[in-house]
């Protein structure tokens, strides 16, 4: 091994005197490092997909919605048509990564008042029950018309992503994808209604509430497929403005 001809100045970090060649090179390296880090930060920060426009919306203020509660597959509030607005089925969830199953227990089919804040992205929205009203048997003493029965829309094969309805609606931005999978699973196991965000509209809807083939809650085995683009087959039904997909098969 032969000697390196040019000796830029032997230097070890504890020397007090830094040879000029070492100093120049190190300073240039430091400047390049800081500049490269700044540039990389900008490039990486703007690179990910746009997270969409979901947001919290306080439509109700301190007030509430009154409707008939259904608990299957997940708590839904069937709000009758009023003031020119057609009847709707509102998905309900709690203020954190939990559903409202507990509060809804015993109220299935009852007239209830629900207060809270909406989280909404496009036509996907969810009422996060809370505030002074929360979810309770209605105190208004109204007698509401029975909600329309489910309208069958046939068997479909649909492409999309299983998400928790809350994060997908904008509680987290982005609230979809595999990076968010564990969070979505936590929400769904906590009782937050899961939704299937579709790649193309089904009967005009960009998402469907998910249920098991028997109409109950989504089975835990489907949590292995959250967050990725998949195709599922199942029966679709409509309750007011909400489509429900009863999953029979998740294609591999």
């Amino acid at each position, binding site marked *: 091994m032969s000697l390196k001809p040019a000796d830029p*100045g032997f230097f070890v970090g504890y020397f007090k005197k830094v040879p000029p060649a070492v100093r120049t090179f190190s300073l240039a390296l430091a400047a390049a490092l800081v500049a490269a880090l700044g540039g990389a*930060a900008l490039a990486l920060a703007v690179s*990910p997909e746009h997270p969409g426009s979901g947001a919290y919306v306080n439509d109700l203020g301190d007030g509430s919605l009154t409707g008939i509660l259904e608990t299957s597959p997940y708590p839904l509030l069937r709000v009758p048509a009023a003031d020119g607005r057609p009847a709707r089925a509102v998905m309900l969830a709690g203020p954190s990564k939990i559903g409202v199953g507990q509060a809804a227990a015993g109220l299935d089919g009852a007239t209830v008042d629900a207060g809270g804040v909406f989280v909404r992205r496009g036509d996907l929205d969810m009422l996060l029950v809370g505030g002074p009203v929360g979810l309770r048997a209605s105190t208004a003493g109204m007698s509401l018309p029975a909600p329309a029965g489910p309208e069958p829309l046939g068997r479909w094969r649909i492409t999309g992503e299983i998400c928790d309805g809350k994060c997908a609606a904008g509680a987290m931005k982005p609230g979809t994808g595999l990076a968010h999978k564990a969070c979505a699973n936590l929400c769904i196991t906590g009782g937050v209604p899961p939704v299937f965000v579709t790649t193309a509209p089904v009967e005009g809807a960009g998402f469907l509430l998910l249920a098991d083939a028997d109409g109950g809650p989504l089975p835990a085995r489907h949590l292995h497929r959250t967050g990725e683009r998949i195709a599922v087959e199942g029966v679709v039904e409509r309750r007011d403005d909400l489509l429900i997909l009863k999953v029979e098969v998740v294609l591999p």
Partner: protein
Amino acid sequence: MSVALKPVGWNRNKLVYDAVLIIGAAVYILAFLNLAPMLSEGAAKVDAPIQRMRAFGSLAFLMLTLVLAIGPLARLDTRFLPLLYNRRHFGVITALVATTHAVAVLDWYYAFSPTPQLLALFTANTSFDRIAGFPFEILGVAALLVLAVLAATSHDFWLSFLTPPVWKALHMSVYGAYGAVVLHVALGPMAGGRDPVLSALVAASVATLATLHLVTGRRERAADAAASPPAAEDGWIDVGDVSEIAEARAIVGAAPGGERIAVFRTKDRLVAISNVCSHQNGPIGEGKVVRGFITCPWHGYQYRPEDGCSPPPFRERIHRYPLRLNGSRVEVATTPVPLGTRLESFRIPGATAPASPVPRTDPPGPRAAAPGPADDKVAS
């Protein structure tokens, strides 16, 4: 093991090194969190905690890439050696940045749930048998644990406590951590092709590091293979011509077993000494005689030419080898004398100055700036 280890010795160069790192990291975080949202509507719409996860996570990955590039860069070009001297601070800061990333993830994706955060981290996603949807967080946890252990054992106390071979082996686990981080990123934020720049960064990082390390490894293997020719007598090798050795510098030969031996020239004397520093296996033969001590280029560990021992209070010792001249050829015995044995260095007959007109590399005046090894030990 050395006595009287002081906590950490700071010096101006270390402060500058750390300052540059911290400024670089701060510039990165500020650009990511504050500047980018002004330039891009998409970045502005992302939740602040998710933006923080991305900022600290990507910075940790970049820093890990850089810190792993320092070793081979310094082998390929000695101008990168100053980066090596304080590399462990780079590693510790990387571990801190990675921890910040992990805390941001726990406080958002794993928060707001009745399941405790740490439990949720391991139970929310159990798709271990799938590639798409694999709980990639676990890979990040594994890497973070390795970085934490390495950061905690980065001080020279642990180096001497564990002994250099064990410490070196332990710290090689950083390569496993790097592999885990690459998979962590590939299976998580890169999935679905949602982040093209991140994908390009990961590809560039893997390609660069693999190339640097493999090229450096090839060079070292080639040097191992090119053993010095044997001398006429058995047990001796011909290391080179005495005129090749510049004052205060060395040439390096390789014994048949692959053990490298450095031959230093200091004043009119020659010294054959192991090329392997007892601190971190640094290449002593690429070092220099500074104020009478043979000094390793990596962290400045110093040895006395006459017995291969570090001066008190330090106790490091490396092997010395018998040496002789055959004409102008330097011949070295391949069997060392026992550690710590005093062996008179070889006086070059009739020589009072370097035999060849090598440019004098010492700066004029004594290297008074270089403190003795006592400073070195606490400074590393």
